[in-house]
């Protein structure tokens, strides 16, 4: 039973139309957007690994080589299991530097256009047989199903359809940052189709041909040689070689690299693929032995490569055979589409652009777009040429394995990229050339010989026979020994260029190297002008705008560190367009670095910190400890309750901590890299001015902030940059501490004000009491006088009234004098000390706060001092009040004044609990008090100390715990004229 060729052609055409529809619907957002971003969609898209080789060829390979077909998937499983140390680092580098192909990656790592050219050419050469294999699988499947030999026209139509698909859905965007979601979903759809169909055919083989598992077991029991043939090759020589080859192919084949890294929408999807992809491969291969045995049981007389079709044709429903054909078509078309897109990008970046760079007057974006489209067509047609030119004597698997050995030649270079910084460009190119030569002799030459292109097989079968190894094992061993050996040996003998070293560090996970150098161009506009010379005005504007947007940078940015970052971002973005090496050359040539300018480590601090933040999860061992230490130090600086500002050797700000942000209201981010004199006012004057002074400290510096005065203490110190590897120590930078005193001063003033209010309150109460008594007396006397006629009594009453009013006048005079003192603090006079003593005792008594305390004052009237009477009275009030506060009810407080030499000595003694030794130093400090909260401000004693000091006197404490305290005040007696002048100027 067969199908008409036209029916098959129509079915294939409808299927490919459906594929177009799926891609188109995704691109137009007709399908939910999360479908494209789903990890399983990503996993299925990587399933492009399984081509018609898997779909058809595995059964054919199993028929001759048993379980050897599994090696192709066990090796791939190994690559995915090792994803954290293999695929994820490659994905990181690819995304960071916008590398879209293996050629990009290796050209970037080895800073070599030659490496890119060589990889691309070899990839083209190695992949052509593989594309030819897919076309052949489709045409042969048509032949099997229709029993007709299809003309090359059908193959040509198939190729043309795939070219159309690749052009429409594989080149929608030219920047790698924009992914081809339609392509990804379409390829995932193809993987799903081939998986489902293969499982259906496996199910048919099991239940349709064998009648269930029991039937299969019975057949296997009757044919023990089937199991024996399956297991025999496991321990033979090509087994491990094929595992190794497929391990490399799983991520190095152009289509694999493209779907794994270039079209990856989310890095987390790759982590899901570590198990989901092996699971997909397992399901795909589960049916293979059953289909093979079903073919054997049915006694199919066709090539076992096509048992998948044969068993459905023999006895199955016709729709199943049609579906089987669609499954094979999907496997082949997916491979050709993705491979051609990947190779087109590679060829454009590494062959076409370096060979014929377009005129800057042309639109570069359009040129690249059409270049890729043209190359997709050329590559698929070249594959068609291989298909037509090669004789079909090899099995599908053999053609595929030739490509596998080819891509394995990139493994040493990848290993060097990931884990060997010492690897050099010359070493890589030498190794690759060696590997290509051996591959050409061992793999390509026999293929061309068998196709009649070459007239000799160069004795390869003889050499392989002499080795005693299987040809795949021998080819793998020979190519990689030559390749790897040359790679290591030449790398050891040659030196890396600085560019190579920089790229090697960038590829290494632990690398967080700073950006060296200063760009000569001074603004983004200058970047545009310079780049336009090569890229054209439109492209240059587009790239600079894109890079500015990527970095969130202002268009008028002028900071050198930021411009250095902008330059690097432009190079990365151009790398996605033109390939890393061409982008590197253009940026180096157009945006030159100033050879005179030096870069301090501090200049790159922000960059280094950003890199450390983003790659923290990749740090290992001591690096993690060092990073923790760095974070701790940085956090300490950030959380310091003092403003911290550090500048580098060129006066540019490298640190502006949180306290300083809050103090100044200026954010750190836009400041980093600017000079202090570019700060907004008034901070520019304060900090830039202080940085220029010779003094390391400035105390209580007044600054008008928002129209209000504020006070700051400033401190600064020089620091030296750590010595950068191989560089001389640079000039020192500077660190400044800024302490805001304004709040402290305000608090002091408020407390003093509260203290004054409390004093006034107490005084007012005392005054009311004192004046109240005589007023009551006067009122009583006045009442009595109304009815009194006796002149003597009237006169006596009047005398008493006058006496009471005098008493009131005395009280008021005392108060007046005290208040005048507050307004005339700087006035001095010569007065008898006992007057101040009387004032103080009188005032204290007026408050009635210490009514239970006896105040005994002894003051000779001839002791005269010069000074501010009110201030000294206040001191005595404070000291007497303290003594009274420390006393118990009934205690006595003595105040003795005496003259000794040219000094007056005032002693105030109480019988209180005394002052402990450890507190005697601190009681003079402002705001220190031992009294309960709200009863003392802690200012009295410190103010008294200050006043006595202003009068050139001393104040000392002599105290014994439990016995009492004696406060001794020494004041100069009436001073000479010169001393008076000195005081007056104080």
């Amino acid at each position, binding site marked *: 039973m067969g199908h008409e060729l036209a029916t098959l052609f129509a079915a294939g055409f409808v299927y490919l139309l459906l594929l177009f529809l799926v891609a188109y619907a995704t691109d137009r957002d007709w399908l939910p957007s999360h479908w494209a971003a789903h990890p399983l969609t990503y996993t299925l898209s990587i399933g492009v690994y399984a081509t018609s080789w898997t779909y058809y060829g595995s059964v054919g390979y199993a028929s001759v080589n048993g379980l050897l077909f599994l090696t192709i998937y066990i090796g791939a499983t190994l690559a*995915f299991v090792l994803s954290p140390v293999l695929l994820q680092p490659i994905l990181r580098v690819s995304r960071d530097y916008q590398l879209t192909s293996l050629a990009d990656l290796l050209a970037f790592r080895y800073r070599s256009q030659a490496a890119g050219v060589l990889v691309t050419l070899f990839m083209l050469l190695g992949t052509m047989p593989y594309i030819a294999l897919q076309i052949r699988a489709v045409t042969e499947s048509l032949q099997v199903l229709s029993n007709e030999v299809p003309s090359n026209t059908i193959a040509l139509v198939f190729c043309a359809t795939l070219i159309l698909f690749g052009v429409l859905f594989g080149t929608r965007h030219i920047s790698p940052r924009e992914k081809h979601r339609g392509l990804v979903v379409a390829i995932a759809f193809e993987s799903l189709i081939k998986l489902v169909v293969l499982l259906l055919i496996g199910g048919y083989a099991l239940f349709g041909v064998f009648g269930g598992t029991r039937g299969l077991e019975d057949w296997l029991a009757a044919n023990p040689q089937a199991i024996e043939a399956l297991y025999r090759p*496991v321990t033979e020589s090509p087994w491990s070689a094929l595992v190794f080859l497929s391990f490399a192919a799983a991520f190095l084949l152009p289509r694999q690299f493209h779907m794994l890294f270039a079209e990856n929408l989310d890095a987390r999807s790759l982590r899901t693929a570590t198990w989901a992809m*092996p699971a997909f491969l*397992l399901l795909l*291969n589960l049916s293979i032995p059953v289909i093979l045995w079903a073919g054997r049981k049915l006694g199919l007389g066709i090539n076992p490569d096509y048992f998948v079709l044969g068993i459905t044709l023999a006895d199955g429903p016709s729709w199943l055979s049609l579906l089987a054909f669609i499954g094979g078509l999907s496997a082949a078309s997916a491979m050709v589409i993705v491979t051609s897109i990947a190779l087109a990008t590679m060829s454009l970046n590494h062959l076409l652009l370096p060979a014929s760079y377009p005129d800057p007057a042309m639109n570069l974006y359009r040129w690249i777009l059409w270049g890729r489209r043209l190359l997709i067509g050329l590559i698929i047609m070249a594959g068609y040429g291989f298909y037509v030119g090669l004789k079909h004597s090899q099995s599908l698997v053999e053609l595929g394995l030739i490509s596998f050995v080819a891509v394995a030649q990139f493994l040493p270079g990848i290993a060097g990229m990931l884990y060997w910084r010492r690897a050099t460009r010359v070493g890589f190119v030498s190794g690759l050339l060696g590997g290509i030569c051996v591959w050409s002799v061992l793999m390509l030459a026999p293929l061309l010989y068998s196709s009649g292109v070459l007239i000799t097989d160069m004795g390869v079968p003889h050499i392989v026979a002499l080795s005693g190894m299987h040809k795949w094992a021998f080819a793998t061993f020979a190519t990689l020994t030559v390749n790897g050996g040359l790679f290591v040996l030449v790398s050891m003998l040659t030196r890396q260029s600085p560019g190579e070293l920089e790229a090697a560090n960038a590829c290494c996970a632990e690398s967080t190297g700073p950006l060296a150098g200063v760009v000569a161009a001074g603004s983004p506009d200058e970047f545009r002008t310079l780049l336009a010379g090569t890229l054209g005005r439109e492209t240059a504007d587009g790239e600079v705008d894109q890079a500015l947007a990527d970095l969130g940078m202002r268009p008028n940015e002028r900071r050198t560190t930021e411009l250095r970052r902008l330059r690097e971002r432009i190079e990365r973005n151009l790398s996605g367009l033109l390939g890393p090496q061409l982008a590197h050359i253009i940026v180096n040539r157009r945006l030159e670095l100033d050879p005179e300018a030096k870069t301090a480590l501090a200049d790159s601090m922000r960059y280094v910190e950003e890199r450390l933040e983003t790659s923290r999860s990749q740090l290992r061992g001591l690096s*993690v400890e060092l990073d923790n230490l760095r974070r701790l130090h940085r956090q300490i600086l950030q959380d310091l309750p003092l403003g911290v500002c550090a500048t580098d050797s060129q006066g540019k700000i490298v640190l502006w901590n949180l306290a300083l942000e809050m103090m100044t209201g200026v954010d750190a981010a836009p400041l980093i890299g600017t000079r202090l004199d570019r700060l907004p006012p008034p901070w520019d004057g304060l900090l830039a001015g202080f940085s220029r002074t010779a003094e390391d400290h400035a105390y209580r510096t007044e600054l008008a902030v928002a129209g209000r005065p504020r006070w700051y203490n400033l401190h600064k110190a020089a620091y030296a940059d750590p010595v950068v590897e191989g560089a001389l120590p640079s000039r020192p930078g500077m660190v400044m501490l800024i302490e805001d005193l304004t709040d402290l001063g305000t608090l002091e003033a408020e407390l003093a004000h509260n203290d004054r209010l409390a004093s006034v309150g107490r005084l007012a109460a005392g005054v009311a009491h004192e004046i109240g008594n005589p007023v009551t007396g006067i009122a009583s006397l006045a009442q009595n006088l109304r009815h009194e006629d006796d002149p003597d009594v009237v006169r006596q009453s009047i005398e008493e009234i006058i006496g009471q009013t005098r008493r009131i006048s005395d009280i008021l005079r005392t108060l007046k004098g005290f208040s005048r003192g507050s307004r005339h603090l700087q006035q001095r006079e010569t007065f008898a000390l006992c007057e101040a003593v009387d004032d103080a005792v009188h005032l204290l008594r007026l408050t009635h706060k210490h009514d239970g305390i006896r105040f005994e004052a002894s003051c000779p009237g001839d002791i005269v001092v010069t000074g501010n009477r009110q201030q000294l009275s206040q001191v005595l009030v404070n000291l007497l009040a303290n003594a009274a506060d420390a006393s118990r009810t009934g205690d006595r407080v003595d105040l003795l004044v005496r003259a000794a030499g040219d000094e007056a000595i005032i002693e105030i003694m109480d019988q209180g609990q005394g002052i402990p030794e450890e507190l005697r130093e601190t009681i003079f400090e402002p705001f220190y008090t031992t009294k309960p909260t709200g009863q003392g401000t802690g200012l009295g004693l410190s103010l008294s100390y200050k006043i006595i000091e202003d009068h050139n006197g001393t104040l000392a404490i002599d105290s014994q715990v439990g016995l009492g305290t004696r406060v001794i005040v020494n004041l100069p007696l009436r001073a000479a004229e010169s001393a008076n002048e000195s005081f007056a100027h104080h």
Partner: protein
Amino acid sequence: MLPPRFPLGRELAVILGVLLLLLFVSPVAGWWATPGMNWMTPYALWLLVILGAVFIHRRDDSDGS
């Protein structure tokens, strides 16, 4: 300060890779590749490795790394 994250996921991945090599590319393969064994034995071993990868993936996810 957070304690340094120990990259156990990477190490488990390498251990799993070594296990795969041990099962499929070592003399151990000679043990299961005998006619007496069920033809699905290599698939079962393969599934074992996949389950190991699932375990590592879930562990990494729960770490939030």
